[in-house]
């Protein structure tokens, strides 16, 4: 007998969005998001025909919105796998309603982020050259390798814990039976299958952590490996990883709050979950601020002319309004809203998360563009401003993310049903045993 058997008749509310006919709001959202995506596709095709001249990029600012989006979206993807893996590894019991959403974010956003370097390419038709004549010495190849590994790892990591839920859907559903039949992969819920599943999840949760860390480290290396002022910095690897987790948690919060109200999941996503994860967001905010401080102080104190020019350009020049908005969004707002229990409410967390998302996007902008606008040679420089194409492709990417998420939610439970039920059935006892194992043995206490 397996230790526990998930039931397809409990937790009705989690199945409801899948089984009910599509609501009017859902249809409206799909149409609205779909049209934004379609418009972006149109603009991209136009770019394919006319060349990158349709963007706002030029000499010397040869990287703009696309590379910013690339770094930003891949950063968001760290929400998922990394947070879910860390919470599983540390056996944080409050993870149960959160992990699925986190994993979905990763899979979708990673696919979108990974497209951006291709969108940015002058010759996307030569994409295969990366494999045919790739140079492993180039940081871009490191990116290709680690993003591919991360995408493979995180989709597996999303799929594995989904299997028992798909099996529940197969039991319940008349709709899309073939889909659930196929995706449940012959799941019968035997003891052996549970063992294998748990083992596989345990392996994957360890494996994805170093891959996730490598992904954003390697993305930072694209910049750090050049000699450009403002980029050539040893701190960039960890700085990018911290920023990625930071923006990832913020995106996770936005998704949690949106689905909580749309699907009526108040009973599953309780204030306590927001409280706990809110502390993590606060910690990342402080960590991000510390890294930013280290990065800028080192540049300022050494005051190498080229470095100083870029630094002053960011903090006091053309980018000053954006720079200080970033500091407010990433440090002041989260610190104010999250450090006190009274303010760490759901509206407070939502406000902080949106601020962090804006702030982290600005951070990517402030890393990419000002360094390019300040070349070392006395070059007649131009100022970068994105074109309609770049803006609509960014909007398209964001819309595609939302669309992917709601379509996923239409087919699969957005909260892991079996993990909630497992928590109900086993976790209480297990946790009690675990906690008592931390304490001195009873004989010792008596003696």
């Amino acid at each position, binding site marked *: 007998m397996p230790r526990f058997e998930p039931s397809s008749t409990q937790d009705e509310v989690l199945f409801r969005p899948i089984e009910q006919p599509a609501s009017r709001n859902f249809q409206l959202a799909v149409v609205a998001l779909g049209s934004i995506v379609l418009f972006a596709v149109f603009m991209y095709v136009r770019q394919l025909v*006319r*060349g*990158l*001249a349709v963007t706002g*990029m*030029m*000499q*010397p*600012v*040869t*990287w703009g919105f696309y590379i910013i989006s690339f770094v930003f979206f891949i950063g968001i993807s760290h929400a998922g796998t990394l947070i879910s893996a860390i919470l599983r590894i540390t056996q944080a019991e409050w993870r149960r309603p959160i992990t699925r959403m986190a994993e979905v974010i990763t899979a979708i956003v990673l696919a979108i982020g990974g497209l951006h*370097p291709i969108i*940015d*390419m*002058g*010759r*996307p038709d*030569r*994409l295969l*050259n*990366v494999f*045919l*004549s*790739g*140079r492993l*010495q*180039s*940081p*871009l*190849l490191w990116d*290709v390798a680690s993003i591919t590994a991360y995408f493979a790892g995180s989709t597996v990591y999303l799929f594995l814990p989904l299997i028992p839920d798909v099996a529940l859907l197969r039991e319940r559903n008349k709709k899309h039976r073939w889909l659930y039949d196929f995706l449940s992969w012959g799941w019968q819920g035997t003891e052996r299958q549970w063992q294998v599943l748990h083992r596989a999840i345990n392996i994957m949760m360890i494996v994805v952590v170093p891959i996730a860390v490598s992904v954003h480290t390697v993305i930072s290396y*694209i910049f750090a*490996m*050049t*000699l*450009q002022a403002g980029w050539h910095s040893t701190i960039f690897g960890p700085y990018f990883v911290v920023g990625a987790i930071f923006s990832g948690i913020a995106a996770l919060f936005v998704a949690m709050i949106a689905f909580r109200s749309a699907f009526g999941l108040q009973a599953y996503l309780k204030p306590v979950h927001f409280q706990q994860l809110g502390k993590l967001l606060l910690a990342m905010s402080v960590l991000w601020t510390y890294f930013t401080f280290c990065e800028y102080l080192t540049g300022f104190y050494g005051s190498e002319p080229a470095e100083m020019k870029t630094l002053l350009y960011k903090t006091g020049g053309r980018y000053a309004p954006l720079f200080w908005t970033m500091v407010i969004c990433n440090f002041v707002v989260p610190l104010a809203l999250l450090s006190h229990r009274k303010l760490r409410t759901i509206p407070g967390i939502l406000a902080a998360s949106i601020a962090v998302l804006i702030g982290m996007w600005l951070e990517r902008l402030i890393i990419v563009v000002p360094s*390019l606008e300040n*070349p*070392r*040679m*006395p*070059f*007649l420089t*131009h100022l970068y401003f994105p074109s309609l194409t770049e803006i609509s492709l960014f909007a398209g990417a964001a819309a595609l993310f939302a669309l992917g998420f709601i379509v996923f939610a239409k087919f699969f439970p957005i909260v892991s049903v079996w993990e909630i039920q497992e928590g109900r059935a086993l976790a209480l006892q297990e946790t009690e045993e675990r906690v008592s194992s931390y304490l001195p043995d009873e004989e010792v206490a008596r003696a």
Partner: protein
Amino acid sequence: MPRWGMVIDLDRCTGCGACMAACKVENNVQIVSIEESQRGRRMHWLRLLTETSGSYPDTQVRTAPNLCMMCDNPPCTKVCPVHATYLGADNLVGQIYPRCIGCRYCMAACPYSVKVFNWSASPPPPGMESILNPDVSVRPQGVVEKCTFCYHRLQAAKEVARAENRPVRDSDYQPACVEACPADAMVFGDLDDELNLVAQLSKTVRAKRALEHLGTEPKVYFLERRDAQV
């Protein structure tokens, strides 16, 4: 094998722009529209950098040609994902247009900002088709290009040398910019040949290389203006 290099005497440079024009025509560098040019997308393999100092009427304008420095330790070739830019056998930094994927990483990595990108492909203005140089391939939209020290001229020189059964000599070839300079401000040749003017000039006190502290080891030297030495 000669180590091709260039010395540019900034005291002799008058800022006339003949090098720029010669380069543009010699290498079939795309002529972009006025609007594109105003957007910062004008294309030059060699451009004149101008620096203005002082205030009117004591304004000083200094000019210096900016072209590929042909670094011995090039930051651009290190980052290329597809081996489209590379340090070749002639110690020159090459660019393979049919392989370039247009990621512009080399442009971001080049501290001298000498690489240019084909943002769009506009046909040459009327009449210009007929003067395209048949020795230099025309680049398609979406690839990066840059100064090659007129590599096609070196190839021609190599063929002559092979026919005459001798190694390529230092005096066999000159890039178009050097040839065009009316002030004789640009000198080109083998940096390793002690008897050569380039080698001698490159070892004088006035000889400086741009952003030398970055360790890129450029093969283009600038002879500082004498008034700048004080």
